[in-house]
């Protein structure tokens, strides 16, 4: 049977029973520099077409590229954060191909001399275990232009009559990070792929080298996958699924390709080495371009650029600028804040770590900061269709100071929890600061113990059976009495104090 691109898939359990997956991930990151890799053109996202171009990035004759020093520094910092060696001396190369997304007919890249190589990134999986992802290399290159295909159906490349190209993106600094073939992930291969990309994204964000927005294409992932029959060690033929641009898609694409490869191999077929396109909507890949003669890129050293040879002093001074690794920071914060694993995970998933950190720094207790941000504020954000609590809060000018203020109102005894919730409603409705809202709504616990005692006496008198139970030692029965007292007080009492008084009257 010849190599095939069938869309049939094998059941997941059958794939795992017969094969071991081998993963390879290539991630392209657009750096957040002000200017392009080899020229001073701006890199602003969303500018009018072809307004951020010059003779260098348009490949006009006689133009001389010069390397962006911040891009080199960012590349070295990324390499160091990935535990890589940094080259003593390396060059750029021309990758020659004809495609209108590069007006020069070559892409300036690095070939056999990457700036960073031989590293690793430890990735934490959902069960708390760690998977070490070996990094092959991280190299510098430039992004390509953006093509708009005209005349075909729905803007796709097939059937187009011509293409319109915008070169604003051409020349924006890219770092390509390539893993070694990752074996041994087994059934966790899809999870490992997602966790790696997520960990890498967090790391790049902490390094402040890129805005790492997968949805805007400033971070893009290509998934290489092959299967080895169990018990064998020779790598199978791989496919490369291009531009898988969300964490969830990375996981799904790996799983899908495993099942697709499995179906072909189980039938005695062989895998065609090709690129595949990922379809977010249907969750499948389709055949793209087959490796061909055109992939003979005829790399050669770029004669217009001189070698990059960072001194060891430079490398060490850049190493000193590395932030605390995100995973380590999370562990430290969890221990500082005294959160359980579950609480920490919820806070992480909700993207609230930085906000809680700022809130604690501003004077709130960690428990209070967590309670309000992931409770009332997050609930309200979700109810209004926002999954990003931080930006929801920012849009409404809700700050850590508000949380500190509200917590102060509760601990000082002015508000109880249910009143605090009402205050949040007002704050989120734009009625002002917590104190202002509490004032305007007349929210204040009744501080008059006499009124509270009178209410307790009435409730005890009205519920002799329940009161007797408490007298007989069933302390939990007091809950029903507390509820009635709070009702009698129209919620404006301190439930803790009500409980104290009830127990004092019935058990002493």
């Amino acid at each position, binding site marked *: 049977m010849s190599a095939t691109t069938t869309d049939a898939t094998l059941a997941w359990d059958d794939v795992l029973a017969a094969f071991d997956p081998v993963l390879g991930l290539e991630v392209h990151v657009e750096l957040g520099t*002000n*200017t392009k890799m080899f020229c*001073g053109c701006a890199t602003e996202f969303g500018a009018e*077409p072809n307004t951020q171009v010059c003779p260098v990035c348009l490949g006009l004759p006689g133009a001389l590229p010069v390397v962006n020093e911040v891009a080199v520094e960012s590349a070295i910092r990324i390499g160091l954060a990935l535990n890589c060696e940094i080259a003593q001396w390396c060059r750029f190369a021309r990758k020659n191909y004809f495609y209108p997304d590069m007006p020069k007919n070559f892409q300036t890249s690095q070939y056999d001399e990457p700036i960073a190589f031989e590293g690793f990134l430890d990735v934490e999986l959902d069960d708390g275990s760690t998977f070490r992802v070996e990094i092959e290399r991280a190299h510098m290159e430039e992004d390509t232009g953006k093509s708009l295909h005209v005349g075909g159906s729905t803007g796709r490349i097939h059937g187009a*009559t*011509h*293409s*319109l190209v915008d070169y604003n993106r051409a020349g924006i600094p890219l770092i390509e990070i390539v893993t070694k073939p990752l074996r041994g992930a087994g059934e966790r291969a899809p999870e490992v792929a997602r966790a790696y990309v997520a960990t890498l994204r967090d790391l790049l964000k902490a390094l402040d080298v890129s805005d790492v927005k997968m949805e805007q294409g400033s971070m893009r992932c290509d998934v290489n996958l092959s299967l080895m029959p169990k018990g064998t060690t020779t790598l199978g033929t791989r496919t490369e699924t291009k531009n898988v641009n969300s964490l969830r898609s990375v996981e799904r694409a790996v799983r899908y390709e495993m099942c697709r490869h499995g179906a072909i191999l189980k039938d005695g077929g062989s895998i065609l080495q090709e690129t595949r396109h990922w379809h977010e909507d249907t969750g499948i890949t389709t055949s793209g371009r087959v490796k061909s003669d055109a992939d003979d890129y005829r790399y050669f050293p770029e004669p217009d650029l001189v070698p990059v040879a960072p001194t060891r002093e430079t490398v060490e001074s850049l190493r000193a600028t590395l932030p605390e690794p995100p995973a380590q920071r999370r562990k430290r914060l969890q221990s500082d804040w005294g959160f359980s694993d579950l609480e920490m995970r919820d806070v992480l998933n909700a993207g609230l770590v930085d906000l809680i950190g700022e809130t604690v720094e501003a004077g709130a207790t960690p428990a209070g900061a967590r309670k309000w941000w992931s409770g009332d504020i997050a609930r309200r954000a979700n109810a209004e269709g926002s999954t990003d609590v931080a930006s929801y809060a920012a849009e409404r000018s809700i700050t850590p100071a508000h949380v500190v203020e509200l917590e102060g109102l509760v601990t000082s005894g002015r508000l109880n929890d249910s009143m605090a919730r009402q205050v949040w409603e007002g704050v989120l409705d734009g009625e002002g600061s917590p104190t202002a809202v509490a004032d305007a709504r007349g929210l204040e616990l009744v501080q008059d113990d006499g009124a509270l005692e009178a209410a307790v006496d009435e409730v005890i008198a009205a519920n002799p059976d329940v009161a007797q139970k408490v007298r007989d030692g069933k302390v939990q029965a007091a809950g029903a009495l507390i509820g009635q007292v709070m009702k009698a007080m129209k919620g404006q009492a301190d439930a803790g104090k009500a409980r104290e008084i009830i127990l004092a009257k019935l058990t002493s």
Partner: protein
Amino acid sequence: MAELTRDDVAHLAGLARIDLSDAELDRMVGELGVILESVAVVQQSPIEGVEPMSHPMPIVNVTRPDVVRPSLGADAALSGAPESDQQRFSVPRILDED
């Protein structure tokens, strides 16, 4: 040095997007062969212990600060394009060999 074959020339022509007729291919095999043969003399140089050179000047780390400089502007950028549309370069459809 290995002889340049007709297949080599056809492959290179394909990569360079140059359409050569059979007669032209035959002629190029001969002409390119002569050029390669002439240049091959340099392979007799004693190069033991000599590092390959990619740049004539022994300098490294020429960089520029990350400061925006004015771009050309779309009109000037597109002025050399044979065709343009919607402020973009218009190019023949891609993947015509598919």
